[in-house]
């Protein structure tokens, strides 16, 4: 180092020349780093990197994962079911009504005193002597399932419809969008109520199947989601495609001779995937909320299957004596909806190319 320093010309006083002694020679490794381009980042990697930097989005992912683990593990650990009356030593415990969290009924206390073991009622019991914790867990399961399923339904129908309409353009687009406008103007809650009334008369499910457990109200909710809620997604995708279609790479693909299907699949959809991901993430909480609302007004899942909305509704009756029963499902709804919303916002910040520059 000292030898090289001596080689450097001395700065003459009063000159505007930069003092060369302040410079350091680049090491071999630094020179090599100049030759190598930065690591190639894909769109997904880039977005995930930005998502990881967002504490709110990461926090909501953690919350959602915890909730998911809870609803998967809890039914395997806790010995109660969502529909069965609590039994002590094979005997139905009619005294275990409206217990406070972590308390035992007289029968259970007697059984414990005799040396038996009773799993604690983490959130107490309801007025039908059922373990409230398990009901909240199953309610969360139902709500999440409805939210995810409805969003997937909306995603598939909306993306298909929107991409066809946007790509075809002209009269086809005009006609398809007028259909969307008409559907947009239908009152969705009224449609749910009407459909569930009609469907409960028309459809009979095999007893014991998942659909039968959820009840006709839920099936009609899915149908309504499939019929009505996709229009927002369809409009969004169409708008994206209309703007992407104008890019020269689409023309280039046409001049190569690529077919329409290939152009949509390879060139157009990958470029609007960020919008689709974001709006699906934001669709989930809105579906959960709709389901909870319908269950709250009594149009949701069929008893004894609980959902967060129907739990909140039944807790309303005893609100004066047992206010905590409203708190648990309400907190759960809030946590899920808030987490999905924050995650959706985080995804938008991370993946929306418009915010990038």
């Amino acid at each position: 180092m000292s030898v090289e320093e001596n080689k450097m010309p001395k700065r003459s006083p009063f000159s505007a020349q930069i003092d060369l002694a302040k410079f350091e020679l680049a090491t071999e490794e630094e020179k090599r780093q100049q030759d190598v381009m930065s690591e190639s980042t894909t769109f997904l990697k880039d977005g995930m990197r930005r998502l990881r930097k967002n504490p709110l989005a990461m926090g909501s992912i953690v919350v959602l994962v915890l909730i998911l683990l809870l609803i998967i593990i809890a039914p395997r650990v806790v010995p109660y079911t969502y529909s069965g009356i609590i039994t002590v030593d094979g005997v139905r415990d009619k005294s275990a009504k409206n217990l406070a969290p972590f308390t035992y009924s007289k029968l259970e206390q007697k059984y414990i005193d005799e040396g038996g073991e009773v799993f604690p009622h983490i959130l107490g019991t309801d007025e039908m002597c059922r373990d409230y914790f398990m009901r909240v867990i199953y309610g969360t399961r139902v709500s999440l399932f409805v939210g995810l399923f409805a969003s997937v339904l909306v995603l598939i129908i909306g993306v298909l419809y929107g991409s066809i309409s946007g790509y075809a353009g002209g009269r086809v687009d005009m006609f398809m969008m007028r259909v969307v406008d008409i559907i947009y103007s239908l009152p969705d809650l009224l449609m749910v109520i009407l459909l569930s009334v009609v469907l409960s008369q028309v459809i009979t499910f095999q007893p014991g199947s998942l659909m039968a457990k959820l009840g006709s109200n839920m099936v009609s909710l899915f149908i309504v989601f499939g019929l009505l809620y996709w229009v927002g997604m369809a409009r969004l995708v169409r708008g994206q495609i209309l703007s992407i279609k104008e890019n020269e790479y689409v023309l280039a693909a046409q001049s190569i001779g690529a077919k329409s299907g290939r152009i949509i699949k390879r060139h157009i959809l990958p470029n609007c995937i960020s919008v689709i991901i974001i709006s699906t993430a934001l669709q989930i909480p809105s579906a959960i909320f709709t389901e909870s609302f319908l269950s709250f007004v009594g149009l949701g899942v069929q008893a004894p299957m609980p959902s967060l909305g129907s739990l909140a509704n039944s807790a309303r009756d005893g609100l004066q004596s047992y206010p905590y029963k409203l708190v648990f499902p309400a907190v759960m709804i809030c946590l899920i909806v808030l987490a999905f919303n924050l995650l959706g916002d985080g995804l938008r910040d991370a993946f929306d190319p418009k915010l990038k520059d």
Partner: protein
Amino acid sequence: MSNDNGYLVEVKDLKEHFPVRTGFFEKTMLKAVDGVSFQIKPGETLGLVGESGCGKTTVGRTLLHLYKPTGGQILFEGEEVTENNINEYRKKMQMVFQDPYSSLNPRMIVEDIIGEPLDVHKLYSSKGERREKILGLMETVGLNAEHATRYAHEFSGGQRQRIGIARALAVNPKFIVCDEPVSALDVSIQAQVINMFEDLQKKLGMAYLFIAHDLLIVKHISDRIAVMYLGRIVEIGDADEVYHSPKHPYTVSLLSAVPIPDPKTAKERQRIILSGDVPSPMNLPSGCAFRTRCPYATEKCAAECPSLTDRGDGHMVACWNK
């Protein structure tokens, strides 16, 4: 293969009109291209110049059936290219686009962008052959093999344009439409890309339709030049002929606007500044479209539209004034 007159591409009276909504029920035709005819020989470069909005790009795109022509014929090697047999000609005619930023899909790696024509036309039998062909193309346009797995946004404008050129070359075309391929690039990069176009032509023997609005570039690369004004060709001829002895008043004024790098010569030169704006292509003036801005316009110009007439050596001019 070769037909009687030896032309590779022949365009006869090509018309492209776009309907534009002007009212609730009214539609006016925008005559972007209105009766354009020219011929290109194998291995030749025809430069197409004109100010923005005169229909240069539309000519290029209609030629490749990216827009359905309203009228006229496009012949390739003497045979007519139509809607039905266009896929056959997609392997023979290709296009290089103007904007190197929007002409490459941002979600695809370079290898797939260049390989797409190969995929579409199934021009390989194995994965290895595909990769070999792509690497060969990348070498031809001066890209490194290590660039193959990178995304388009990681490259500079000049490199992106090279990727676009490699994509056009993938099918071994005989004719390439270059739609202002250098106007979005820096001047120093322009020279590199232009020289590459020339080298490729020498090596592969393709014909170009070179669209640009920079007369100097067009003069440099073209064998012949066509000048367009409002959807029509007003002058077409040998590059040197058109550049050094322009006949049409529009060409003369265009040439007088070419910047000269020597300030002394530039001062002495007389600039012809056209008065008025370009008329709307939706409402063209009667007769010669240029008459509203032409200093030599007569009554005849307003009454009748002049057609291209030969002024010797294939130098065709559409003007009543001799």
